[in-house]
């Protein structure tokens, strides 16, 4: 690892100031779970690390019925996993966090860091997309808010400018008669996912589909929301046949990348199985 300077700003404002000053010579470190591995391999050589890990201003989980949940970017995975508010209002989020990486990674790594590293297999983004989350970004010119699915740009690349930080994740309250499911495929437990799928359905009083969300990981350079597959359900009663139809459409949208673990065809096939399973599971969760 190359040498670098280090600063731990006390506030968000100060953080932005430092970033604006150093521009691309600076790199943010949150939990460092991903970043340190990159630095150790000398894949990057920042002049200064800007440490936001201990920035208490960004470490919070709040909820109210009107605005839903707000999670500060430096909240650890572990805090999300065990938060009574999360467990009460978005149990699927806690369930996902419980299987993300290892206890050690979750205890120190942050939810913001997970989104910012933009690993295409990341567990967090698909669920946030299914939950219709938005992200708040802070920069020298103030704040901007984006839907989660617009945050990622490419492999390991997000919309963040070099002087911006991800500050907050906002999740609206879940509509009544909504079911959400997420699961991922991996060969070894505790390992990063090969592919995964999140599905959310909201039903009308008459049992037809008011809203559907489908998002997958490991199936494209970015977390993939698949509106064409979602559209299959709108206004209709969800049946196995419709699910099959949506799964095929979802498959069309995927551009899996082969690697040493699995071929692209295999990944796509399994991702489709997971879309199907999660659709059925989400549906079964609606009372």
């Amino acid at each position, binding site marked *: *690892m*190359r*040498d*670098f*300077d*280090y600063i*731990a700003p006390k506030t968000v404002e100060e953080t932005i100031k430092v970033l604006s000053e150093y521009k691309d010579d600076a790199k943010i*470190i949150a*939990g*460092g*779970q991903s970043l*340190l*591995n990159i*630095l*150790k391999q000398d894949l990057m050589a920042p002049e200064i*690390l800007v*440490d936001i*890990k*201990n920035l208490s201003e960004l470490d919070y989980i709040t909820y109210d019925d009107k605005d839903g949940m707000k999670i500060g970017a430096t909240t650890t995975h*572990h805090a999300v996993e*065990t938060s009574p508010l999360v467990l009460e209002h978005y149990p699927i989020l806690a369930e996902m966090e*419980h299987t993300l*990486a*290892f*206890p*050690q*990674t979750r*205890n*120190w790594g942050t939810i913001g860091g997970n989104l910012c590293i933009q690993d295409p297999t990341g567990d967090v983004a698909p669920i946030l997309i299914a939950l219709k989350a938005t992200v708040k970004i802070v920069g020298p010119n103030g704040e901007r808010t984006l839907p989660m699915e617009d945050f990622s740009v490419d492999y390991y690349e997000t919309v963040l400018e070099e002087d911006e930080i991800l500050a907050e994740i906002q999740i609206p309250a879940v509509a009544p008669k909504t079911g959400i499911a997420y699961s991922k495929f991996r060969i070894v*437990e*505790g390992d990063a996912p090969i592919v995964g799928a999140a599905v959310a359905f909201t039903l009308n009083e008459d049992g037809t589909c008011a809203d559907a969300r489908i998002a997958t990981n490991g199936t494209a350079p970015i977390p993939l929301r698949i509106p064409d597959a979602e559209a299959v359900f709108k206004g209709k009663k969800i049946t196995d046949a419709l699910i099959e139809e949506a799964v095929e459409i979802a498959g069309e949208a995927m551009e899996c990348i082969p690697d040493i673990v699995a071929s692209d065809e295999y990944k796509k096939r399994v991702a489709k199985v997971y879309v199907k399973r999660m659709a059925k599971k989400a549906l079964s969760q609606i009372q």
Partner: protein
Amino acid sequence: MKKILNFTLNGDPYEVAVKPKTTLIELIRDEIGLTGPKVGCNAGACGACTVLVDGKAVDSCSVLALQVEGHHVETVEGLADGEKLHPLQEAFLDDGGYQCGFCTPGMLMAAKSLLNENPDPSIHEIRHGLSGNLCRCTGYVRIIDSIHDAAQRMKKEGGES
């Protein structure tokens, strides 16, 4: 340029000067000289370097030393109370929870973290609580049993006192 860092290690306050790029494991092993936590992969994948920060397990190879400013760090060296071994240590001894011993300091600290949070874990919870720690010798079975046994011992001890 070195920076000053204040933290506690196994209950003792430390003030040290470290280079920013020093990781917590390098601080503990190379600068302070404790050798319990081990380096197995230096990538956050094997857990041999597991220590507790404020009671929670972290991979000390994947934490910058400067980030523990103001925090409490515990290593395996802080587990026993003087001569009196921690119930986890007793259980590892009685139930064969180690072989070569290289992963053991990290295993014990991962287990301690788990029990701090969940004093009465099921076997399933123990298995998942150890997902970040590789052991190539035991096949994990004895380790899982040891931790389960330790939880029972601690319950008993807690009940008696």
